[in-house]
């Protein structure tokens, strides 16, 4: 999910019909520049080198989403596939949850299998402390910076959709990163953008990023 305003210009993207590293290449109508879909970066043309802002998209089920966002709207186009439902999570070996730390920073990922089994995974990568969480069966998953005001926090799975910070014993929401009970009540973790990706695609694009198995 990208913002499509670059240098104050609104761009419209279309499928170029090209692949690079077996992944989609987008073209913008306005300048004809080519963009790597997975990197969100222009690789050729007038805008070469420009990067799209990644928006915080969440992959989850429609049932879970509309329960959380009563006023949501939804795309009303025809289906082009039928295979993407909860069953996809039953083959977690094919997926990772990748965290975007920004261009030039090796992007870490957590094997979906580990994430489903443990629900809360502490990651140390690229000089950052991150906690990756999922509430049920791998969907939705999210990533947070696991440090607040210079203090590194370490989390473990708690009851229901909660996680517990080990040093203080405080309780935090898995999905919102908000502390609801304990010494740090009211504190909120900073969210990182992340995405569920095919493992094979992630490895091709971020070969230097570590995968927590």
């Amino acid at each position, binding site marked *: 999910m990208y913002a499509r305003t670059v240098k104050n210009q609104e761009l419209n993207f279309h*499928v170029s019909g090209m692949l690079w590293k077996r992944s989609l290449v987008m073209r913008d109508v306005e300048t004809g520049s080519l963009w790597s879909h997975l990197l969100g970066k222009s690789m050729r043309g007038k805008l070469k080198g420009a990067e799209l802002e990644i928006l915080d998209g969440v992959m989850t089920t*429609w049932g879970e989403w509309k329960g959380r966002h009563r006023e949501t709207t939804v*795309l009303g186009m025809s289906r082009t596939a039928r295979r993407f439902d909860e069953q996809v999570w039953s083959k977690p070996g094919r997926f990772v949850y990748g965290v975007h730390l920004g261009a030039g920073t090796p992007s870490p990922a957590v094997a979906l299998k580990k994430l489903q089994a443990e629900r809360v995974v502490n990651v140390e990568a690229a000089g950052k402390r991150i906690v990756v969480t999922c509430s049920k069966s791998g969907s939705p998953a999210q990533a947070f910076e696991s440090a607040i005001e210079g203090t590194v926090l370490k989390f473990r799975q708690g009851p229901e959709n909660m996680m517990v910070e080990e040093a203080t014993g405080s309780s935090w929401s898995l999905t919102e990163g908000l502390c609801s009970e304990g010494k740090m009540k009211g504190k909120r973790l900073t969210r990182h953008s992340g995405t569920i990706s095919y493992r094979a695609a992630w490895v091709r694009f971020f070969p230097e990023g570590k995968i927590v198995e």
Partner: protein
Amino acid sequence: MEYLPRPALPLPMKWELLVYTLAALALIVHASAEEFNPRQVVKAFDAITSPEIVSAEQGAKFVRDDELILGVVLGKEARAYPINMLTNPTREIINDKLGGRAIAATW
């Protein structure tokens, strides 16, 4: 300059040559792996702009609860893009507006 006919390579040498050539090719392929070298595999498709958007109530009539969606919240607006509508080359990018911002829904 005296012309010296080049002797034919004996069979094992031809095989060696083949091995060297393949190794050299592999190196070239490896070195160019980081370059941007896209291949045209299908024709280009027109940009999708102003997509049809419906309410959750209307959407619930045709999107099953267990279908995967890509969800985003911007400002006070939330929107879901069913993955089953964002699949195949004709549909991989949706140019949309949400919460006053221009966005590209894609995964």
